[in-house]
């Protein structure tokens, strides 16, 4: 199945510059958020929102065509 992913902020560095933080990847059926992060080699603490909804946990099972928004939380500035 295919999952659309948008990485925000500093996470854009996990993809080539030309991707501008966006990529579609192929995964096994019933892949979880943890599986997707492993494919992207993201080891740091991130927040993942699925299809514009609330944030989901690492063990959340994905469906074909799901859209993930991946970002970090830094408060302040």
């Amino acid at each position, binding site marked *: 199945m295919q999952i659309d992913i948008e990485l*925000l902020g*500093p996470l854009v560095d996990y993809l080539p510059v030309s991707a501008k933080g966006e990529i579609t990847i192929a995964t096994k059926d019933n892949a979880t958020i943890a599986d997707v992060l492993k494919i992207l080699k993201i080891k740091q*603490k991130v927040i993942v929102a699925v299809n514009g909804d609330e944030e989901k946990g690492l063990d959340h099972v994905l469906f074909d065509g799901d859209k993930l928004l991946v970002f970090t939380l830094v408060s*302040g*500035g």
Partner: protein
Amino acid sequence: MPFGYTGKVLHVNLTKSEITVEEPEEQFYRTYMGGSAMGMHYVLKETPAGVDPLSPDNVLALCTGVVTGTPISGQSRITSVAKSPLTGCIGDAQGGGFFPAEMKFSGFDAVIIKGKSPKPVYLWMHHGEAELRDAGHLWGMTTGDTEDKLKEELQDKRIEVLQIGPAGENLVRFAALISMSNRANGRTGMGAVMGSKNLKAVVVRGKQKPTIADPAKFKELQKLGKTNLEPTGMDGFGKYGTPGVTTPQNKAGGLPTFNFNSGAFDKHEDIDGIKLFNEHLRGHEKDDQNRFGRDTCFSCSIKCKRVTEIAEGPYKTDAKYGGPEYETLATFGSYCGIGDMDAIIYANALCNMYGMDTISCGATIAWAMECWENGKITAEDTGGIEMTYGNAEAMVKMTELIAKREGFGKILAEGSKKAAEIIGRGTEDYLITSKGQEAPAHMPQVKRSLSVIYATNPFGADHESSEHDPSYKAFPERMKQIGLTNPQEKLALNEEMMRFAMVTQHLSSAVDSISVCAFIFGASFQLYGADKLVEVINAVTGWDTDIAEILEVGERRLNMLRVFNSREGIGRELDTLPKKMFKRPLEGGKSDGYVLDEKEWETALEDYYRLCDWNVETGHPSLNKLESLGLGWVVAESEALSRVIS
């Protein structure tokens, strides 16, 4: 010699040109730990109630903490406290760089300043000694020129300078203290307080490095900082700095736009941290930004500070004035509807050059723009400058006029709340202030526990005084360390979220007292959690503190700030939010339609008071709470407080 701190506090009476040295007992350091709490001890002891913030009797305390100057990330911070000329409440501002560590090396933990010099002077603290020197020739100079001149005069390039620019001299009510020409103790107008005292700068130099009680443990904690870089994401934070949050904030509907009327800005990519890094940091032409475009504080491995340079054109900018933080990109950018990065970089440089808080400055201009858009301010007021949203040229011009107190800038230099009082015509409806301080770039409509913190914080709306709502759910292990185990759903504004706000506020308050960086030590995303903050303090000082004691230090400091306001007769009546946050739903983006419910908010406010043990009717701390924190003396020493606190 104590471990970590010097054991010496410098007292300067500028009226009498007197300098004395106090050597407090160890228990004093254990009680306050430094920074804001230590400064508040002196402000409460030595400032008379009802003092005019710009009069000689206002006391300005500049305090480092017990770990400042030790070689670990996040320790080089200094806090300034005094009554604020912007708000009339207590003022408080933190800053970093190399000045705080160097001040410790000069042989002093803190300097307490009172009085007013008959002529401009600077304070020269070096190698355990201190003296006042003439600064007549420096008065009127920009921060960069002053720093260059002092290095030349003292024949030492390694001095560090904490100073006011022309804005502080001109008593702009949100004037900042500036070090390195680009680091600011920005908020609440501490620069105006220093300016009112005819004190141009504090200059420090020394070689007295703090001794560390447990070097082996300290080394282990230093190493942990490196190990933690990737899992915490602080390596990416260092690369893109605070501006890296701009697009995520926008996606969440939390990027204040058009003076807080929207949480989404259609030009957010133009003011984003990725663009700033790729196209504007010094060295970007040769892809060498990491070497030339990032700066740091003493002994900090994160290197989150931006360095920008514009070689030519109307926004020509010298790299010595640094680069914009997220807050600055928002206040001069999205708040004003401006997507011109060069203009924002230049406005940031003007603020550093003249010595002003970029948050209050940008937000005050944004307020004027909304007034203009609604016909409340016209060209007759502004001297012909068209204050329309998106007008970068007007924003830059107004920044300069404010610093110089010229034209319409003379009114805006009072801050937006006082400016609204001067202008009238319903302009107060467009304010985004709490206690007269302009709101920073995090939206209470989106992060709801912040709404109560913005309203109740003793020095006005502030984004660094507590953790933000999403952190509760996102960092369960670290939240558990401070007893928070019941995260709530998004947008919840209930008793548990008030507990989250208060407990994380106590930790943030401790961070500002120990005087360490809120990006390095804290309850959620930071490089080190609360447990490691305790270990760092213990390794440096040889103490046996724990998280409970650290939280109590934070609570003590919060109550000291709060009771200062009580003594000024300020309580619940000023714990308010801007009207528009209740009346005007946000427009566009993910937060479209968001608005705070007044009744729900009042209930949350009262929950917060009860949790704090503050009187629900008056907002004042209870005597019981103050005594439990060892602060009974504050009430005992004040007739005014004895009448209102029981």
